[in-house]
């Protein structure tokens, strides 16, 4: 696999990917928890900086929407396609469909939140910060579990 080839060429395992993703995600959850908005979110226009608050690529695209889980399952499913062009094309359509639906779900979720007041959104942000932090730790744990499995030869 092209992506799998790149990872194995660099000697990077999906477990390492999970751990690094977890660490980075944890860092992203901290400003959500404490209500700081350094870099990630600018409360006022004057504070906007081109790169500083860009959450699109990190953490939203990677690792939230395309994380170790998505990459691992894509590698597995590509294997199952066994080089069949029809399946690979079909798989590409499936990937496109999943992300199109995801776009719709995220846009809808945002509209629902917009109807709640500022105070409620603040509370929810903190709670979600805790969940995001826990999710980040879970990534790290899965990475460690996967690494341990490789060590004892169960994988």
């Amino acid at each position, binding site marked *: 696999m*092209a992506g799998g080839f790149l990872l194995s060429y660099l000697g990077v395992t999906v477990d390492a990917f999970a751990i690094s993703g977890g660490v980075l995600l944890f860092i992203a959850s901290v400003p959500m928890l404490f209500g700081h908005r350094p870099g990630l979110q600018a409360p006022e226009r004057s504070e906007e900086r081109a790169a500083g608050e860009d959450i699109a690529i990190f953490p939203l695209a990677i690792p939230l929407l395309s994380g170790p889980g998505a990459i691992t399952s894509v590698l597995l*499913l590509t294997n199952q396609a066994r080089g069949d062009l029809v399946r690979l094309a079909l*798989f590409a359509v499936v990937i496109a469909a*999943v992300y199109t639906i995801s776009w719709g779900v995220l846009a809808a979720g945002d509209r629902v939140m917009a109807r709640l007041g500022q105070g409620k959104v603040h509370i929810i942000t903190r709670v979600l910060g805790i969940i995001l932090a826990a999710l980040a730790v879970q990534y790290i744990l899965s990475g460690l579990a996967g690494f341990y499995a490789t060590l004892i030869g169960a994988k």
Partner: protein
Amino acid sequence: MLLSVQEDLLQFALRAFVTLFVVVDPLGVAPMFVGLTTGMDDARKRAMLSRAVAVAFSVTFFFSWPADFY
């Protein structure tokens, strides 16, 4: 014969869809998206969302192609 081949394809597509949908987990990411974009105006949120989904698709798609195509 033809029908069974198609059924097999459908099964593969369905399995791929369900697997990927569960791991991408848009319903779980939606609240995170809201939390991360707090304080941004709508146009900016939309731009972030579209870019994020485009990048996520590209990365995932990149991992879905076998090495022998290169």
